[in-house]
């Protein structure tokens, strides 16, 4: 199970075991990580699973599709390394992934 570290806006880190091939979002919600809301359940409809991917890992998290790009461009505090975590699959390759959360999802 790939390990993913979620760092809250206040700096608190949570390292969880992700179910391989579920999304990074699901790793957060299944482990009660504060700071990810994921209101639409992974449908890319709400932009409340917003994370900043650590620059060292960006190249491994794949490319945004058009829907994600559109949604995330309007998210609070969007940055170049912003992603919707429901669109990133937690593959074995992402073991050790670090993401940060924004101040809020709403």
């Amino acid at each position: 199970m790939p390990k993913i570290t979620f760092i809250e806006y206040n700096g608190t880190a949570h390292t969880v075991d992700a179910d391989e091939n579920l999304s990074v979002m699901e790793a957060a919600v299944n482990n009660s990580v504060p700071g990810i809301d994921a209101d639409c359940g992974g449908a890319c409809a709400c932009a409340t699973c917003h994370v900043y991917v650590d620059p060292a890992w960006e190249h491994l998290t794949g490319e945004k599709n058009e829907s994600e790009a559109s949604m995330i461009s309007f998210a609070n505090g969007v940055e170049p390394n912003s992603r919707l975590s429901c669109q990133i699959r937690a593959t074995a390759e992402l073991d050790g992934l670090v993401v940060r959360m924004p101040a809020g999802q709403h």
Partner: protein
Amino acid sequence: MPEPETPAAGIVIAGAGHAGGAAAATLRQFGYQGAITLIGDEPILPYHRPPLSKAWLKGEVTAESLALRPARFYTQQNITLHLSSTVTAIDRAAHRVALADGTTVPYATLILALGARARRLALPGFDLDGVLELRNAADADRLKGALRPGQRIAIVGGGYIGLEAAASARALGAEVFVMERETRLLARVASPPLSAFFEAAHRAQGVAIHLGAQVIGLEGQGGHVAGVRLSDGTVLPCDAALIGVGAIPNEEIAAAAGLACATGVVVDDQARTSDPDIFAIGDLTNRSLPFYDRRVRLESVPNALEQARHAAAAITGRPAPAAEVPWFWSDQYDIRLQIVGMPFDVAKLVVRGDPASGSFAVFHLDSANRIQCVEAINTPAEFMAGRQLILKRKPVDAAALADLSCTMKDLAA
């Protein structure tokens, strides 16, 4: 011998649907450490409702992936589950809820998340086999069984349930006809351009749509539904019928316990009922809308989740979350509809983009040119920017809105 310690009564959540399940998870996410007991009348863990009319019917997701959280989550987070358990009464004075099996459960704080049930029609034939509704997983399984090539499905009600089911039914090769008593689909909830768009989209997929159609009965053969009778005398043969004509809040035990109800349990912006130790969330509630100066029942997943956050914040002493603009989404065929805001106090509509292109948005403006609501078809930018504009209460230039060379980024700035 010292007295054995009675565990302190903690939070009881009555209803383990989308709202109840979210409330339990949010309480833990917000740091609540006390006892949480989640009681639901279904035999399965809390699950996502939206896929029931879509991916679940089409066989695209597993039961496991439908769950809001996996089974181990409840163990790890120390959330006690009572499944297949019906709450029958609330004893407010004793701070206990009674279950159908005769037992009672004490609470310090109670969260009611009992949801709503499908509205039934007082029509001949309504109780025939094959007359279906779509509220829960068991309903979805029954409906799924009827969706096969060669089967004719009658859908009564041209709302979101009916239309999503129609799209799924077509994907599975069933023949579908929709009967809507108003003169357009989604009459209660959507603008005329949106209704027209969906009507055309469904017809293009082979769905027969009967508008202005009053269903006066269901015909049976051998105890099973065989046709739908309309007020003009037409009988449309079918092999199954889905009734999707609205939902009734399950407020009865709240009303019996003396809580304020008004077609839904009345709550404030913290999801509090008229009892200081009882909250209510989700489809069950009658709530105020901060941006619209009205009270409504908001039957949506975003509302269930927002109210779960209201209750969890109030219980854990966090500041109230910022008020959210209501929003909703629906997927039919390859059409993604996102709606933000509510079509109240609308003075004019502005269409941005060409519906024929399959991507467009309808903006509902009030008399001061402020956006009240945005319906976005396959265009997330208008949905997201629309939310910002509604929040800012910012008047817009209607002509610029209709002009695709003006970007939503510029308009929302």
